[in-house]
Structures are given as structure tokens and as C-alpha cells.
């Protein structure tokens, strides 16, 4: 018997780590991975809340999140490959042609 808030705390930590990764990592693939990390954190909170409210829909949402994550991974990695072809770099700081 442990308080649910622990799980939520864990998911929060994971999410924060994901955001931090997004902020401090330069490699676009790593950044992408930190997005996945955030998604996982959210999934954990989903499951935890499902346990709190005894509603399975929380776990069902996890599946949807996973599906979206898979789709996103496919498209995102394809984009990364395309970007690498044109820019020949994976460093997001070098992929900023919008800049003045």
C-alpha cells in the first residue's frame, strides 16, 4: 500500500526529464527520444489515475497514446532522415534557417 502520489511524482519526474532533454539536448534524435520519455510519463499518470478511479479507460488511453507515439515516431524519424539528407547534420542548432 503506497500512496498514489508516488506514481504521479514519478511520472512528473519523467516528464520533467523529457522537457529538460528537449531543452538541453542538441541531437535531434535525442530530442525525439525525450518526447517519447514525456509520453511515457504521461502514460504512467494515466495508469495511476486509472487505478485511483478504478476506471479501465485510463489504461485504454495508454494504448491510444502508444499508437500516436508509434505514428509520430515513424513520421518523425522519416523527417529526421530527410533533414539529415539536406542539412547533413543532426544538430538542431544548425537547423535554424528561420533565424535572421
Amino acid at each position, binding site marked *: *500500500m*503506497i*500512496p*498514489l*502520489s*508516488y*506514481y*504521479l511524482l*514519478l511520472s*512528473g*519526474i*519523467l516528464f*520533467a*526529464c523529457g*522537457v*529538460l532533454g528537449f*531543452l*538541453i539536448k*542538441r*541531437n535531434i*534524435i*535525442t530530442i525525439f*527520444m525525450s518526447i*517519447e*520519455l514525456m509520453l*511515457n510519463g504521461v*502514460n*504512467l499518470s494515466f*495508469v*495511476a489515475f*486509472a*487505478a*485511483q478511479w*478504478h476506471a*479501465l479507460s485510463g*489504461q*485504454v488511453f*495508454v*494504448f*491510444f497514446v*502508444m*499508437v500516436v*507515439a*508509434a*505514428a509520430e*515516431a*515513424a*513520421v518523425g*524519424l*522519416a*523527417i*529526421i*532522415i*530527410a533533414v539529415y*539528407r539536406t542539412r547533413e547534420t*543532426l*544538430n538542431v*542548432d*544548425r537547423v*535554424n534557417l528561420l533565424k535572421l
Partner: protein
Amino acid sequence: MLHLILFLFFGTICVAGAINLLAQSHPINSALSLIAVMASLAGEYLLLGAEFVAAVQVIVYAGAIMVLFVITIMLLNAGKEERTQGSRVAILIGVPGVLIGGVLVAWTLLHRPDMQTVPIGALKGDPSDIARLLFHDFLLPFEVTSVLILIAIMGAVVLASRPEAIARPHRSTPGPQETRELVATGKDHR
């Protein structure tokens, strides 16, 4: 007690993996640590009773998505990331923002009086029940998501396969000569 121990075990792996993801400079290490995070998250799910979710987490996330990542890293032969100072904003505004937000959330979570406690295997996510939910109550979202997947597949194919890839072989994804190139340039990925 056992619950707390297991939770802490998996949780530690999770956090360690997450931090390692940030700490590692080589994407492949980040990827592996992320796999570790996901696997241990599956353990957390099991603790919460969502065994089906746990299994799918391992199969889909660890087994499929992360494989995609690893393959991509191998293909693009991503080396150590260079420490460019691209964005002051991210460091000066973003990081503090994240920390503040995290601290606030943690504070709220820990100071909620009505936060209930859960036993081990709190809510048993039996596959049949989940399937019933998925194919009755959430049928429409399910179908929509399938369409989303389809679109994603097409988008990925269109994006990743380019006609001029033949014209510039060293930029194209598949093909033996390309891989040779990859490995030739792949002398220094540490």
C-alpha cells in the same frame, strides 16, 4: 512493504535511465537508457495491475519504436552530439521554468490530503476487459487512430524515399553502396 520496495526499484531505474538519457552525449546510449526506462515502466505498470499495458509497453515501445530509433541512429551514423550554444533562451528561461513547474507539481502532489493509497495490482487490466472497452466504448477513436496510423505510414514512406536519392547515392537510405559509405564514414562515432 514489498510494493514499496518494488516501486522504488523500478522507479530508481526509471529516473536513473531518464537522467542518463540526458547525461549521455551519444544518442545510442540515450536510446538504450530510454529502453531501460521503458522496461522498468512496464514493471511499474505491473505493480499497478495493468499487465496488458505492461506487455504492450514492452512489445510496442521497447520492441518496435525504440528499434526504429536504434536503426535510425545506425543508419545516420549519429556521432557524439556537439555542444553548440544555440539557444540562450532554452537555458535561461526554459530550464528554470521546468524546474519551477516540477517543484510546484511535486509540492501539490505531496500536500494533497485526500491522496489515496493503492495496493499492489490495484486495478487488474485484464486484456478482455480492455478489449471490450476498446472495441465498444472507444470504437470510433480506435478507428480514427487506425486511419492516423495509415496516414503516418504513407507520410513516412513519402518522406523517407526520395527520387533524387538515386542521383545522390551517398544520401539515399537503402542500398549496399550507401551502407559502405556509412561505415566508411563511421570510423569515429565515439
